[in-house]
């Protein structure tokens, strides 16, 4: 092993050596610089690998041949090695990235870069407080130099502001150090004794040192100077400033905090959380990409600092958690700054130019996912462990604040990403420099590799070794293939996985798996209509299905949560693909992540921090033991799941997301994705049963929520002019029924919910495909612009016809089965009032369904549609399959339900339904689907024959062969009664569709934004103001400590 001190020696030596190089030999100087950085990186990496494998022991390096404290000593352990690798690799890549700028400014700039990286490494390695100060000052000077690499003239002012603040910091640091020395008689960190939390004697000295280090971490709100640097510096340097400087400073602070003792941890937590939340909120209003990333950087460092404050409870997992967040952040932020250097404009929407290169889009997406803590990146595992540790020691407020901050961060990062994918930019495409792209790709590779490594270290399964996830990621490689090839692979994969796993499913899982996987494959048949390569479609699609496949089989809470996140990510990217999908995808991901965080909190709470937590037995156990937390677990999980079922209050993402999605995506996200939430709710009520908070039975609350969703979803659907929106709102209503049935907590109710799982999948997929086909042909989703398409699109018409009969619950199709079960379920329940809402919503279904079929297929054909053809055949095929499935399910519901019925019986110990032959008898009534179908069929045919017997001489007439308003009409537009179809209904019950929920969530986001806009004016841009803020910050914390110590 090469001693780690050579990192410093090589850096410093080469920096001096560069002085000897002639100033016109820029190429040589650059080569030398890069070579030095490469050697430094290699040394660090070598140590990392060796230490991780355990082939070497952590080492202490003595200098001047003397033991500490009489000489400085360095220490390299696992954490140091990892961080050194991050710092040096960032430096190396940044050097490549900044080649042009470095060569322009010459060897001086290069040696400053080397000094910077060297000093950052020193900061990590040293165990001497004063040495810490020296490295700090070196970093200050080097930063001051490197800021000037920027071509932005404003950078000079930013650098000066930085120096001003640094002066104050160094004054605090020096005074703190000397008094710490005075108290301990040593400058060695390992000799510093833990001091009580307070402001007397040694504690005051420690306070000053800590404050100086904290100020280097850019705490909110004393961090205007850092943001100015982020905004104006060369992006290559900003990457170092964020990834390497932040990391090193944090580690330095961590060393001191460890020395100061556990009494100081709460202060660190408070500062960290305050920074995390404050910066994230302020970032909401940023419109400059680099400044936005700067805010995010500051926030993330704050988060890690808050984690540092939790080191007392994290125990052995401390490095895993803190390191996971820190290193992910470093990689992601460096990568994002490097991307920002490729983008010519500084507006957020200017990143749209990245679309010229799918690799960069993928990189952007990956980096955003890393920052937000999504799988499969280290932040995800870290977040999971952190939340469990926090829950295990009852630090619920910290949990809540961290999750809230993370949600805000997800908000602006995904909004940013949405801009890049959807907006147009005025900037001209400059062509991307290959070497710079290569640097970004290196960061990208590093991020994924880290994900793999962290997954491997984690106690939980490594997500990057799970077959479904790998299968989905395989499509990244397959992207160059034509869409139809990928489609076949995808279908085979889905069906194959189902086939392969079928034996392991219990009847309930079987139903969900059949709907999600086989059902998914059927919908994918429709995707054959797309030509070309369809870049960016299959990866998210298959990720979503991978998540669903894993969700069904989840054994532990981790499995479940990871699957949930995977399917959320996949579906987000899918929804974002829709033409006008940007705002809807954003609200989808925010609700989903908010829900996911609640689920995470719920699981953490349930497990009391002990992993692994068996999902079914674990939840049952806490329910049986009536742990005080049990009802809260139930509530958190239920609300989390209901973000996916889009129950009322959490539904506002759904209409847009489903309506704006692509033709074959709408059925996926409606017919299939929503069922994930139902599956979760199923698990929840099966394992935990009835839970009470106070005297309120939570399942009764669910009954109400389900009923209100069913009603309001339906009422809102009535008033839609957009066909897909109508269907989307109807999904809210349908899922409301399912939630309602589930929450009734009786046998038939659960069966009802399952029936809705199957039925809703079939008819909603069918209708979305049908309407999608119509949209393909007519180019509009507005129903009043259509009309009279029945003869032009007969197959589509048939599927809509069957679909609406089934959905409305009219016998003989399968929807009636749902209604019949519904009555049997409510008869067995003690509840009365919520049923009223369901009774109201039932017939409302007729209104919107009739409107759907009437305004599209009946009435007057428009002139511009006279030559339309039937929908593409690939869209029609799955629809016809659905028609057959509906008919089959209508006649033989027992096929799917009988086994599940028996399975549910094992939970309730009853068997209210008797399946005899083709008839079903319940406690209260009976139903014979075959008889119903036959009777109706026979009567229908008989009457039809009767009509035909009265003469077959009906003359087919043309479109306008009617008389209306005393004339024979000739304009379809004025004759097609379609717009505002249910005007009287609006007059009567319009008050029900006041957008209260939308207004509520709008007010929440508006408040956050205006707070951000107001607060960010703190950062006046004046260096002196910043300096004052720094001092005020110190004084404020001083006062807090004073208060806290007493």
């Amino acid at each position, binding site marked *: 092993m090469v001693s780690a001190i050579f990192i410093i020696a090589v850096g410093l030596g080469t920096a001096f050596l560069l002085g000897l190089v002639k100033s016109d030999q820029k190429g040589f100087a650059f080569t030398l610089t890069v070579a030095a950085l490469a050697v430094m990186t290699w040394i660090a990496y070598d140590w990392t690998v060796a230490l991780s494998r355990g082939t070497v022991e952590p080492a202490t390096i003595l200098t001047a041949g003397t033991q500490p404290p009489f000489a400085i000593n360095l220490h390299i352990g696992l954490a140091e090695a990892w961080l050194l690798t991050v710092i040096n690799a960032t430096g190396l890549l940044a050097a490549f990235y900044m080649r042009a700028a470095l060569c322009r400014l010459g060897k001086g700039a290069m040696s400053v870069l080397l000094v910077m990286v060297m000093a950052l490494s020193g900061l990590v390695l040293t165990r001497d407080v004063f040495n810490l100060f020296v490295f700090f000052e070196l970093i200050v*000077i080097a930063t*001051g130099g490197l800021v*000037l690499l920027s071509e932005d003239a404003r950078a000079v*002012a930013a650098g000066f502001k930085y120096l001003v603040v640094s*002066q104050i910091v*160094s004054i605090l640091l020096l005074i703190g150090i*000397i008094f710490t020395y005075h108290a301990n008689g040593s400058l060695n960190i390992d000799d510093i004794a833990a001091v009580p939390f307070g402001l007397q004697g040694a504690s005051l000295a420690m306070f000053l040192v800590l404050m100086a280090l904290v100020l280097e971490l850019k705490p909110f709100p004393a961090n*205007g100077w850092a943001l100015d640097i982020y905004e104006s510096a060369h992006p290559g340097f900003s990457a170092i400033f964020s990834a390497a400087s932040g990391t090193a400073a944090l580690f330095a602070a961590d060393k001191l905090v460890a020395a100061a003792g556990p009494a100081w941890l709460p202060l660190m937590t408070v500062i960290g959380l305050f920074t995390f939340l404050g910066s994230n909120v302020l970032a909401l209003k940023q419109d400059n990409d680099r400044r936005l990333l700067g805010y995010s950087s500051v926030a993330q460092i704050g988060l890690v600092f808050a984690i540092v404050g939790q080191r007392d409870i994290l125990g052995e997992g401390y490095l895993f958690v803190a390191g996971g967040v820190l290193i992910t952040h470093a990689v992601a932020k460096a990568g994002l700054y490097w991307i920002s250097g490729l983008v010519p404009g500084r507006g957020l929407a200017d990143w749209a130019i990245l679309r010229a290169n799918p690799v960069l889009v993928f990189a952007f997406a990956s980096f955003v996912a890393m920052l937000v803590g999504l799988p499969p990146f280290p932040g995800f595992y870290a977040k999971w462990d952190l939340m469990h540790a926090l829950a295990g020691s009852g630090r619920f407020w910290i949990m809540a604040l961290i999750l809230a901050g993370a949600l805000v961060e997800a908000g602006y990062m995904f909004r940013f990403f949405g801009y890049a994918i959807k907006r147009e930019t005025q900037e001209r495409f400059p062509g991307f420099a290959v070497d710079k792209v290569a640097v970004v790709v290196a960061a990208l590779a590093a991020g994924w590799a880290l994900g793999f490594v962290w997954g491997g270290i984690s106690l939980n399964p490594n997500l990057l070794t799970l077959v479904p996830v790998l299968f989905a990621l395989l499509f990244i490689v397959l992207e160059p293939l034509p869409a139809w090839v990928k489609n076949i692979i995808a279908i085979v994969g889905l069906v194959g996985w189902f086939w392969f796993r079928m034996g392991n499913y219990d009847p309930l899982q079987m139903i969900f798996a059949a709907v999600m996987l086989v059902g998914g494959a059927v919908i994918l048949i429709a995707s054959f209509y797309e030509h070309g390569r369809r870049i960016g479609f299959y990866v998210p699609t298959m990720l979503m299905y991978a998540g669903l496949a894993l969700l069904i089989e989840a054994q532990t809470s981790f499995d479940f949560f990871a699957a949930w996140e995977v399917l959320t990510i996949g579906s987000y990217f899918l929804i974002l693909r829709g033409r006008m999908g940007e705002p809807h995808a954003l609200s989808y991901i925010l609700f989903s992540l908010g829900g996911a965080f609640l689920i995470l909190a719920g699981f953490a709470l349930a497990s009391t921090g002990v992993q692994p937590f068996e999902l079914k037995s674990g939840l049952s156990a806490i329910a049986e033991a009536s742990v005080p937390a049990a009802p809260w677990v139930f509530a958190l999980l239920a609300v989390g799941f209901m973000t996916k079922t889009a129950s009322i209050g959490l539904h506002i993402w759904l209409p847009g997301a489903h309506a704006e999605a692509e033709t074959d995506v709408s059925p996926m996200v409606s017919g299939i994705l929503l069922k994930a939430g139902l599956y979760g709710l199923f698990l929840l009520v099966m394992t935990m049963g009835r839970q009470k908070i106070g005297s309120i039975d939570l399942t009764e609350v669910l009954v109400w929520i389900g009923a209100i969703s069913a009603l309001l979803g339906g009422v809102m659907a009535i008033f839609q002019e957009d066909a897909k929106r109508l269907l989307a709102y109807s999904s809210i209503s349908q899922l409301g029924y399912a939630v309602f049935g589930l929450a009734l907590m009786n046998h038939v109710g659960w069966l009802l919910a399952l029936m809705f799982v199957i039925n809703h999948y079939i008819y909603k997929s069918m209708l979305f495909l049908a309407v999608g086909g119509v949209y393909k042909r007519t180019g509009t989703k507005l129903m009043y612009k259509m009309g009279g398409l029945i003869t032009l699109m007969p197959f589509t018409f048939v599927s809509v016809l069957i679909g609406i009969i089934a959905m409305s619950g009219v016998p003989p199709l399968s929807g009636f089965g749902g209604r019949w079960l519904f009555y049997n379920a409510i008869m067995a329940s003690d509840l009365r009032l919520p049923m009223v809402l369901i009774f109201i919503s039932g017939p409302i279904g007729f209104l919107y369904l009739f409107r759907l079929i009437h305004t599209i297929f009946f009435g007057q054909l428009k002139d511009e549609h006279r030559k339309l053809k039937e929908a593409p055949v690939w869209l029609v095929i799955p629809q016809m399959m659905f028609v057959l499935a509906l008919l089959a399910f209508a006649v033989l519901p027992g096929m799917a339900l009988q086994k599940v019925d028996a399975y549910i019986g094992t939970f309730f110990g009853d068997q209210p339904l008797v399946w005899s032959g083709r008839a079903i008898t319940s406690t209260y009534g009976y139903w014979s689907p075959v008889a119903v179908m036959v009777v109706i069929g026979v009567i229908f045919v008989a009457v039809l024959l009767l009509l035909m017997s009265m003469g077959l001489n009906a003359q087919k007439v043309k479109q306008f062969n009617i008389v209306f308003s005393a004339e024979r009409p000739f304009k379809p537009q004025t004759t097609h009664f379609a717009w505002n179809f249910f005007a009287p209904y609006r007059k009567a019950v319009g008050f029900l569709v006041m957008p209260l929920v939308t207004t509520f969530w709008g007010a929440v986001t508006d408040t956050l934004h205006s707070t951000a806009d107001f607060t960010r004016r703190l950062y006046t841009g004046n260096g*002196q103001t910043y300096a004052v803020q720094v001092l005020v910050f110190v004084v404020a914390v001083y006062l807090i400590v004073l208060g806290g110590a007493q």
Partner: protein
Amino acid sequence: MLPQIAMATGFVLILMGLYGALTHRNILRMIVGFTIADTGVNVVLVSVGYLPGRTAPILDSAVPVADAATRIIDPVPQALVLTAIVIGLGVTALMLAYAYRLFRARHSLDISNFTELKW
């Protein structure tokens, strides 16, 4: 008594320097303010290491190695001060260089004129 006076003087210098740096808008005056504060820090550093009645930490014939520990004052703060002075010099030089570039850019040394970056 002497170390207390020195330390008090040091802190007064720090406060004076900071006051100056934060109230004067002229960049050069700010730099001067920080230099004063730096000096104050150095005085504080030295005063912490001072022990009454002892001699300078120079090991020669007057102070044999054997009883050095009881006769000299603490040498570490003095060493620190030397380093701090050097670093302070470096930073001051860098700030002056910045001041020059700022002046060249806008022909002004008023810190409140450089606020394009904000919010």
